[in-house]
């Protein structure tokens, strides 16, 4: 897998929007959360509202990238085999029937890292350039 971090300018969300389609994604939690093991099926189920707990029973709190961010589209296509729009329609069915609340939307990767370390048991996904010592990689998505 090619490294493309040099494509990503560090300052603005618009640079995230320019992320290439085949970038590697990382499912992450905050270092303050208890370490857990999640496979792709677990992650898919959490982000589609099919399960709401982490292994061990704690409530899982997924966080999405902002609507329209290509990282979000790429995550849903790779992990759920659905487009972000399909996932949104899926969540509309759950939300408006009281069966679940869709993942909270973060403004950008920096915001995600902030929330991961403020709220226990939150998980989200980041591009490689956004990884730092405040997050723990749970799964790599090629």
């Amino acid at each position, binding site marked *: 897998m090619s490294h493309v971090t040099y494509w990503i300018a560090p300052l603005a969300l618009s640079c995230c929007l320019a992320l290439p389609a085949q970038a590697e994604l990382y499912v992450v939690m905050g270092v303050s959360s208890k370490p857990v093991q999640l496979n792709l*099926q677990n992650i898919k*189920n959490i982000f*589609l509202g*099919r*399960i*709401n*707990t982490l292994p061990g*029973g*704690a*409530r899982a709190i997924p966080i999405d990238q902002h*609507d*329209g961010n290509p990282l979000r589209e790429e995550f849903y*296509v790779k992990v759920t*085999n*659905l*487009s*972000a*729009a*399909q996932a*949104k*329609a*899926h969540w*509309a*069915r759950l*939300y*408006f*029937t*009281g*069966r679940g*609340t869709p993942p909270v939307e973060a403004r950008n990767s920096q915001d995600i890292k902030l929330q991961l370390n403020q709220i226990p048991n939150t998980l989200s996904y980041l591009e490689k350039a956004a990884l730092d010592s405040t997050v723990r990689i749970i799964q790599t998505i090629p």
Partner: protein
Amino acid sequence: MTKQRIPRLGCTLWFLAFSTAAGAAEFAGLDWSGSGFATVAIGKMLNGVPTQMQSGYACPCFVSDFAQGGVYQQGGLQWQPDSKVGWQGKASLNPDFSVTGQVVMRAAAGGHVDFEWLYGNWRLNEQFSLQIGRKRLPLLYYSESQDVGFAYPWVHLSPQIYGWEIVNFNGANLAYQGQWGDWSSSVDLFTGSETVRNSNYWQMYNGRYTRTDSRWRNLLGADVSLSKDALEIRLAMMQSELANTNPKAANPLAFGPATPQYIYSASLHYEAAHWLIHGGLLYINRKASYGEDFSRSFAVGYRIGNYLPMLSHNRYYQKQHYAPALGLSPAQAEAHHNTALSLRYELTPASALKLQYDHWQNDAQPAFFIANPNSAVPMGSSSLLSMSYDLLF
């Protein structure tokens, strides 16, 4: 509690005040969140085969929504049958207790605002929660989200399988969510009752300007939803006592004797990157009153980028075991099927455009319509072209 109708202005203001656009706020010590949905739909009857006059309807007609009285009639473009706007608000007192309300304003109902949902939710633990209040009956895959057009591929759901006189209940629901091996699961056990005054559904059969009330009591049911990879399955069963008033009776507001009904349903939904396959079966046992109802639907679509073309086929038929007692023959039972071609286009991540052609074919014998002279349920065949703009906000 009967179906609630409240002044539209007050309700709208109440929800707008506390439901920001897909947002959240804190007020009076409560966490408020809310979101909305809307469907703006227009349709035109292309043709139909008139066989008789129907009381109050310009038929041949196309019934797009039995429960809410959505009927396309002869004439020009019509926007009332499927257009609606709804808001849902949730107030959380703490992480374990919340109150959720949803109001819907339908053009088919003349702009009246109805409470479709209003319930308190107690989270007992991570798997179980108890809900008390007003909810939708969870029978088929899209039963509870029938008003949220953005959630499904069509302009309107299959009237053959989603069309019944009662779609809500007031009562209690014990909900479970968990993992069974490789399958994600959710289970509901529910009980309650519902009374609908001046039923839209029965107006289609008894005449548009007649009044019929419907009551389902001692309702008890369960549904199980299972999902794995791209496949979701829902199985549901329900029983209740049902009773209706009869506009032709000496006392048209008095309920007739209650009789039992048993409803069984199964839904299958497969959705991957390209293929979407959806099917449903519904069986209603009302042998104690008139007989049995059978419905089925099947749809297949293939997503190409932002476009989702689909082909759907839906069928309904009835068996009247008690026909002789009613002065009818078995051939007088209601029966019809519908074939639909539809196209959905994802306009934005939260809005979609849809175009749909429906062809409704009557399968009942002419005797049925002679026996039901006021029925708006289509005589002969009818075709409808409709389109919609669905959005979340």
